[in-house]
């Protein structure tokens, strides 16, 4: 970052529930730099979400695009996710990819990254939930990375619910 650079950004977001359960989201950002490095850029994104299963579950897809004066600052991002909660079980899947125009890390040729997160959870008691994440990542930093997380949630009745 250059302390002497002057940066101006203008951004806007609009979301529209065009049909019950369906929401369209559109956003944009204009970034202007006084200095030619890093230069100017524009970001646009569009996404759609659908809530189902009595609104307990949501599925969505989004795409974002960054166009810039310099190729090293350009990338595209796509994300899709969905959840499914039959009874006390909860399953989710979340997939993300970012496609860089130029390799973002010097010396590492990889120009894309992919990540998939799968989770499963079970409500053991009204206030106790056991769940876990399994994450697969491929990126300029990781040739192939697997990560797991086991989560135990105990609700002390302090998180949500007006009178609780």
């Amino acid at each position, binding site marked *: *970052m250059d302390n002497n650079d002057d940066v101006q950004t203008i951004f806007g977001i609009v979301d529209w529930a065009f049909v019950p359960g369906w929401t369209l989201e559109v956003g944009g950002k204009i970034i202007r730099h006084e200095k030619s490095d890093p230069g100017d850029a524009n970001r646009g994104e569009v996404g759609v979400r659908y809530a189902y299963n009595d609104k307990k579950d949501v599925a969505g897809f989004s795409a974002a695009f960054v166009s810039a004066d310099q190729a090293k600052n350009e990338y595209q991002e796509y994300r899709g996710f969905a959840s499914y909660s039959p009874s006390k079980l909860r399953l989710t899947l979340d997939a993300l990819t970012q496609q860089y125009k130029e390799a973002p890390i010097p010396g590492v040729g990889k120009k894309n990254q992919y990540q998939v997160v799968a989770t499963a959870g079970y409500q053991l008691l009204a206030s106790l939930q056991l769940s876990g994440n399994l994450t697969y990542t491929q990126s300029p930093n990781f040739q192939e990375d697997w990560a797991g997380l086991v989560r135990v949630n105990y609700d002390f009745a302090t998180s949500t*619910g007006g009178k609780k």
Partner: protein
Amino acid sequence: MMRRAYAMNIVGAALLALLFGCASVSQTPSVPPKHPEDLPQGRVDCLECHQDVSTGALKPYSMARHSRVFIDSHGTYARQGQNLCASCHAPAFCQTCHARKEEMKPDTKMGDRPDRRAPHRGDYLVTHRIDGRLDPGSCFRCHGNKMDTRCKQCHQ
């Protein structure tokens, strides 16, 4: 350069005047400090009771619909008063993301809630090189300015 700074000051003053003007005629309805009815565990469907019209003490659903725009500016609403948030959320709910020391990224901690808009998904160590270069102001909002210790941990 001086003329530009002068123009920016004029615009800033006009925006402040507009802000105070809007605040003085705010139509924000009063909200009780707690939700008057007990809410069930887990996610609730606000539309079961709150339609998009005000009927008596019932507030319209649009007032608290957690849309993309609402979430992006929820800090502004939270600073205006806690009653609206406290109707459904206890203060501990804020700590899910806003704990002072994060033991892990919010999107990892809340991996089972992909519908939430936790930032920095994926291997953000890669993408932050671009986002930080292009729009450093968006980092400062949560991580402090460039002199902050958070950046200095890696960027000496």
